[in-house]
């Protein structure tokens, strides 16, 4: 299917949806009236037509941009990944433009004075505009989703769309996830065994060392030794589940092969592994339905007897994982788009609230800074303490020091919230065939959409209701 032909079709579908939604919102109270006005604004002022055109042209030219040398599977992955990324990035910027632009325009033209003297507008203005932005985003997202689906569907033979392959759920072993409880237990044991060595360490320093040692123990197997990895998958394993491993044999053995013995519940198998390359081992059918189970890995050393590889290391959280078929590619794509919409909604709320007290350029810059920080993890690590903090007597602390500490705590809090944002970035995962679980979608809606979005919206409404909208500022 020629993707260039689909561009005008997607645009026309968006136009039809936009006009239809303006008509549908003809009834209802203040909330629906304000949403309808925003829809009319973004449609008649060209934001939707131009934004939609940019979005669909970007998706439409993807098949031409991707290298011809890519095989069918790589093309599919690239299409999904770039398509999702382009859709999310475009919609994020458009939601910022629509939210900031619309509210700042009300203030700039003085229309805000007419709006706030109407009864019920104080509470309906921001939520109404927010709903309008969401509707506009949905109107653009629906054709983009169908467009992407058609492109993905026609990118392989037989068409993926008809085949609709399974997506997978990724399960990581519990031993790679070190809990605080484990750290405390390990620390207590070490303190008993070696009170001279561990007892001299500061409390936090001891915890850091304990965590590092547990991780090292779980993540490396020396030659001839084995380690058990425990998995939990409440839904139960299904046919087609595989163990996926990506070992690290060290830089000097980068081109060597090694042997690994894999012990399932009642079966054993040996596989040849390569440094940094992912290998998959199909789980025996006898494990189907298992919810809690153990997989033992024994490192047998290099294939070539003359070479000695001391240990295998599992570097990164995806070094050992189970991939269990669950759901389909299309459902994963839908859920991923829903999470993208939640992120756009959050930006819209942030933009609307920022523009209640900032002008268009500053409000846009403010939200853009957030986007850059959140998408690129720009702040991550900036507030992390590199050294073990020295315990200070609070009675001797200067007020300025207390203030700096409070600011650092605030910064740390923001960083932790930004990690929430990154957690719900799912485009690359869907491209890799991973499922987006319903729990993640609900989590994204609850955390980013309802909790943070709701709080910011309430703040915006409060600021708007307490602000003067007179000529005073123009004087």
């Amino acid at each position, binding site marked *: 299917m020629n993707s260039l032909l689909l561009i005008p079709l997607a645009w026309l579908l968006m136009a039809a949806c936009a006009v239809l939604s303006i008509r549908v919102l*003809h*009834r*209802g*109270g*203040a909330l*629906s*009236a*304000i949403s*309808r*006005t925003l829809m*009319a*604004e973004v449609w*008649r*002022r060209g934001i939707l037509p131009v934004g939609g055109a940019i979005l669909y042209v970007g998706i439409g030219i993807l098949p031409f941009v991707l290298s011809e040398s890519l095989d069918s599977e790589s093309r599919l992955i690239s299409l999904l990944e770039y398509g999702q990324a382009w859709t999310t990035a475009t919609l994020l910027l458009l939601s910022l433009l629509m939210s900031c632009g619309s509210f700042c325009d009300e203030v700039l*033209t*003085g*229309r805000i*004075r*007419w*709006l*706030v*003297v*109407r*009864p*019920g*507008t*104080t509470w*309906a203005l921001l939520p109404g505009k927010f709903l309008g932005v969401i509707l506009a985003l949905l109107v653009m997202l629906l054709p983009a989703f169908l467009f992407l689906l058609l492109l993905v569907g026609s990118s392989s033979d037989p068409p993926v769309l008809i085949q609709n392959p399974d997506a997978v759920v990724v399960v990581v072993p519990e031993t790679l996830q070190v809990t605080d409880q484990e750290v405390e237990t390990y620390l207590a044991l070490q303190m008993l065994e070696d009170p001279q060595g561990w007892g001299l360490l500061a409390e936090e320093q001891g915890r850091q060392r304990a965590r590092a040692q547990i991780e090292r123990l779980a993540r490396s197997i020396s030659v001839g030794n084995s380690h058990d990895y425990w998995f939990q998958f409440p839904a139960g394993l299904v046919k087609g589940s595989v163990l996926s491993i990506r070992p690290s044999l060290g830089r000097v053995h980068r081109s060597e092969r090694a042997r690994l013995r894999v012990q399932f519940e009642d079966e054993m198998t040996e596989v040849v592994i390569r440094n940094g390359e992912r290998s998959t081992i199909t789980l025996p059918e006898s494990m189907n339905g298992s919810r809690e189970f153990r997989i033992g890995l024994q490192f047998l050393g290099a294939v070539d007897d003359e070479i000695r590889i001391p240990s295998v290391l599992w570097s990164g959280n995806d070094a050992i994982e189970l991939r269990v078929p669950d759901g389909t590619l299309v459902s994963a794509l839908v859920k991923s788009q829903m999470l993208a919409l939640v992120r756009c909604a959050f930006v819209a709320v942030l933009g609307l609230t920022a523009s209640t007290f900032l002008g268009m350029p500053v409000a846009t810059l403010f939200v853009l800074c957030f986007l850059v920080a959140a998408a690129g993890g720009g702040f991550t690590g900036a507030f992390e303490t590199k050294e073990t903090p020295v315990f200070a007597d609070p009675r001797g602390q200067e007020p300025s020091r207390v203030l700096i500490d409070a600011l650092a705590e605030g910064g740390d809090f923001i960083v932790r919230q930004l990690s929430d944002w990154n957690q719900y970035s799912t485009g690359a995962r869907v491209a890799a065939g991973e499922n987006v679980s319903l729990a993640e979608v609900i989590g994204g809606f609850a955390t980013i959409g309802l909790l943070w979005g709701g709080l910011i919206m309430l703040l915006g409404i409060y600021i708007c209701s307490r602000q*003067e*909208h*007179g*000529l*005073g500022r123009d*004087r």
Partner: protein
Amino acid sequence: MTSAVIRVKGLRKVFRDFWFRARVEALAGVDLTIDAGEVYGLLGPNGSGKSTTIQILLGLIFPTGGEVEVLGTPPGNPESKNRIGYLPEDSVFYPFLSGREMLDLSARLGRVPDADRHHRIETLLQMVGLSEAADREIGDYSKGMQRRIGIAQALIHDPDIIILDEPTNGLDPLGVRQVKDWIRGLRDRGKTILISSHLLADVEQVCDRVSILYGGTVQAEGAVEEILERDDRTLWITSRPSDEVLDVASERLRQEGLDIISVKPGSKSLEEKFLETVEEAREQGATTAGAEAGGGLPAFLGGRDEAN
């Protein structure tokens, strides 16, 4: 017996800069009482505090001191808001909405029931003479047409108090005459109207009472006839006398010791001539792309039964 719908006592407003330093004292103790069913004019030069007073009454800005009551409640109260119609000084309406859509938005924000909305929109469009142009975008309207749609939106929820900031701004003489007729009609239906305007002749013709603001305080207030009355002058308007009669009358007045300040032959005003010309053109069937003749006040204003 009338009751006050707007009470203002010792109203002060100081505008401050970003650092909360006092920048300008816009109002320095304004006292006003506006009764139900009267047309009240707020006059004064630029910067005298008219707009500030109106914005405080609407709850757009907060007073620094003094007491303000609108319909017995503080300004900005949601209940009283729905009983106020407001025409801003500038026509700031959405340029991408059509006239009909704008009235629809205003009706929905004014909590007009769905069942009445369509009827009210159509009758108001007819009243302001924009039925033919109702589906054109407001951005394409002339300034006068935008003013007309502004007046319609201020009335759509049948308010008790109507605040008009420069209502005749941008209107042609025909429109000005219509607005004055509508204001008188609204007063007859029991509405209270507060007008802020620079066009003193218009205010003089429609207002029952006026106050003149200067320097943030009320300098003069009272019924229009009272504050304009001069006990040292008399104006006669008669049919045109012959020169002989004029000489005799002048001579007699001088004998009585009266000064004749001005005697001039009567002439039409430019407004009268303009209105006559437009009326004639309409009678001859000439059409216009702008506002049409318009009509009288719709029945729903003043709480009359809409079905009738």
